[in-house]
């Protein structure tokens, strides 16, 4: 069949559409939305940071950016991204979780950690002990947590990144005790988890258990979460106990290339994460009790952070991959140590 197109009639319409397109191209860029999938205690940090970044980005490019947040246990969040939650960026509790997104989801390259400074970790934190005012159980160090009659609150390492840091910090302390070795560390951590009455799925849930529900004598917590609890959730009701040894937690961030590419948000997602490293970003992190990387900001906020001897996962556990396989994989040490209901 012959099809006749009325080209002459269509030309004005085409010209009109082209004109409109050019006009649009010359106007404000199209608004964009990012989804930041993060771990449990970063809600307040990113609420603050997102506003600041949106203002910065609008000023720089004229583009409106809206950042949506999703929070939960770090491991659980990583699983959600692998299963289809369309995160433009992830800001999780540990590198292993982003490795999983790269490996199992294929959503970003394996070398993601080398794409931003400090192993893609713009701020650090550590693990401390939060006790009730007056420290009624006399908690001074990790060893006290395994004593009879002490009730300990910590989340579940199977779902929470923070809980893994907690667990490894306790293990590292036990290794550094006189005569300490893998067997004594295991025995100590086993006794410690026998004192845990409730395993929350994430760090924020554990804080709720300890602070709001009034359960337990000590909360093993992110330093930022413990400082937040003292300053904002329960003024005058809690004290921080700095253990003799703790672990240097380096929560990493990354652009999820495939999703950001699909959404056309790669540039703004990259800028979003880079902004965490700026003085403004570092100030915001410090105000929310994360230890900043930038020396000038770190010096300014030095007084708010307890002085601790910090070990790293790499030096004590041989990196996250090994730590996961030994301690947190199905059937590994944590499953052997902690059996619900027993």
């Amino acid at each position, binding site marked *: 069949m012959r099809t006749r197109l009325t080209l002459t009639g269509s030309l004005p319409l085409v010209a009109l559409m082209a004109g409109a397109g050019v006009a649009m191209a010359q106007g404000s860029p199209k608004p964009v939305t990012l989804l930041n999938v993060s771990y449990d205690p970063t809600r307040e940090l990113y609420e603050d940071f997102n506003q600041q970044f949106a203002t910065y980005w609008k000023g720089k490019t004229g583009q409106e950016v809206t950042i949506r947040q999703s929070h939960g246990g770090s491991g659980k969040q990583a699983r959600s991204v692998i299963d289809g939650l369309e995160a433009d960026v992830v800001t999780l509790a540990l590198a292993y979780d982003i490795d999983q997104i790269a490996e199992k989801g294929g959503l970003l390259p394996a070398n993601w950690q080398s794409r931003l400074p400090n192993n893609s970790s713009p701020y650090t934190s550590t693990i401390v002990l939060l006790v009730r005012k007056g420290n009624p159980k006399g908690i001074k160090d990790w060893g006290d947590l395994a004593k009879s009659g002490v009730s300990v609150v910590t989340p579940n390492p199977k779902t929470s990144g923070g809980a893994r840091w907690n667990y490894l910090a306790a293990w590292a302390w036990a290794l550094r005790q006189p005569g300490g070795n893998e067997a004594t560390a295991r025995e100590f951590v086993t006794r410690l988890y026998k004192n845990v009455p409730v395993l929350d799925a994430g760090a924020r849930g554990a804080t709720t258990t300890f602070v709001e529900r009034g*359960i337990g004598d000590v909360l093993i917590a992110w330093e930022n979460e413990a400082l937040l609890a003292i300053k904002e959730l329960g003024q005058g009701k809690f004290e921080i106990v700095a253990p003799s040894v703790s672990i240097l937690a380096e929560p990493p961030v990354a652009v999820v290339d495939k999703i950001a590419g699909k959404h056309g948000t790669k540039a703004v997602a990259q800028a979003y994460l880079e902004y965490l490293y700026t003085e403004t970003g570092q100030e915001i992190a410090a105000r929310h009790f994360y230890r900043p990387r930038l020396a000038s900001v770190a010096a300014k906020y030095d007084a708010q952070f307890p002085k601790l001897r910090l070990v790293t996962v790499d030096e004590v556990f041989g990196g996250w991959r090994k730590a996961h396989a030994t301690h947190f994989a199905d059937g590994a040490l944590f499953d052997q140590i902690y059996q619900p209901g027993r």
Partner: protein
Amino acid sequence: MRGVRYWTSSLIVMAGIVAWAPQIVAQQDSTSLEARVNELDQQVRILQRLRELAADSAAAAAKDKVSATASSKDGFSIKSADGKFAVRLKGLVQADGRFYLSDSAVPVTNTFFIRRARPILEATVGKYLEFRVQPDFGQGTTVLFDAYADVKIAPAFALRAGKFKPAVDLERYQSASDIVFAERALATNLAPNRDVGLQLSGDLGSGAFTWQAGVFNGVPDLGNGDGDVSDAKDFAGRVFFQPFKTGTLGGLGVGVAGTTGLERGTAAAPALASYRTPGQQTWFRYGSSTTTPANNVFADGRRARLAPQAYLYTGPLGLHAEYIQSWQAVSRAGAATVKLKHTAWQTTGSFFLTGEKNSFKSAAPKKAFDPKAGTFGALELAARYSELSIDDATFPTFASAASTPSKAKAWAVGVNWYLARAIKVVVDYEHATFTGGTVAGDREAENFVVTRVQHSF
């Protein structure tokens, strides 16, 4: 002296002990009790928190859970937790009895048979894609009725591709499980049944305005096609308004549909329709000859249809009506091409004696049939009138007046008993008369009784 002092001091100590002992014991009891209360308080708090966490876990698990459901409305379905993926199995079975009364001149066999037997498979794949496949095994044949994919980007804009009903005839657009009478009216003869093509559609204002526009292979009136015999395609479109969404006129709908295209058949493959009586007997056909097939009439040019239509549903009352004109250019060997215009209309009314709300879709009885509970289901009375007129220019060149009537008229009454949403029993009587069709005059009237037991889910 020393002894006296010893005994004196001993007595003082003992007196002191006796005096203070209850207080010490009481203090110890109090400390122990407080510790016990604290311990119990912690236990209660722990149990409460564990219960909270268990509830959270259950809620989270429910979100991830694939659900399987069964209902008379939606059939059997399996759905992912987020609702983005689903498979639904539905079905329609109609067991009919057809009885032709006073059929001495045109005898037709009374028979029980399966009018429709349709398993229906529907699937939702992701956020925007839906599929439907509906074969029919009724009447001892296998025919694919629907096989299409919908891309539903927004209510105002959707794309359908595959085989489906072109949006032309109001009664045809109504599902076979929802039609008021067992068989559709004479007017439906002038509209396509199923065709293969692409259609854009939209719904604005939650049904206040719906539109469809599509391109199809093109089929003759009443046709159910799977392919095309020519390059030409038909275009079909429909707009339908429901201006009042509430009140007495809330169920008023008015619209118009039309098709246009070219169809060029051949004497061997004429691409022309035959028309049926309400009893599904052929009463009109274009001229054809088994001895000289070269003389067969065939489609030869423009085919178009125009179908204004309306319905009104208010309380238990339902009315719908439509008018259809169908133009078809036809030719035969040795004759000039002539553009014929056939016209038809129908109006149908129904009323639920049991008070159910009438609508374009089947009603659900207020109380399903249950003899033990003394409930009856829903009872609907229905009446219909329809006509179909063949263009005078058809005779005698393109159809024989001696064997083909030029007009059919039919009135019908019926009763529908809805035992439950899924089960309907139908009894209809339809009387059709004809103008012409025999050498002696009019073709014998058709007196058609049909019974139906329908199960749809």
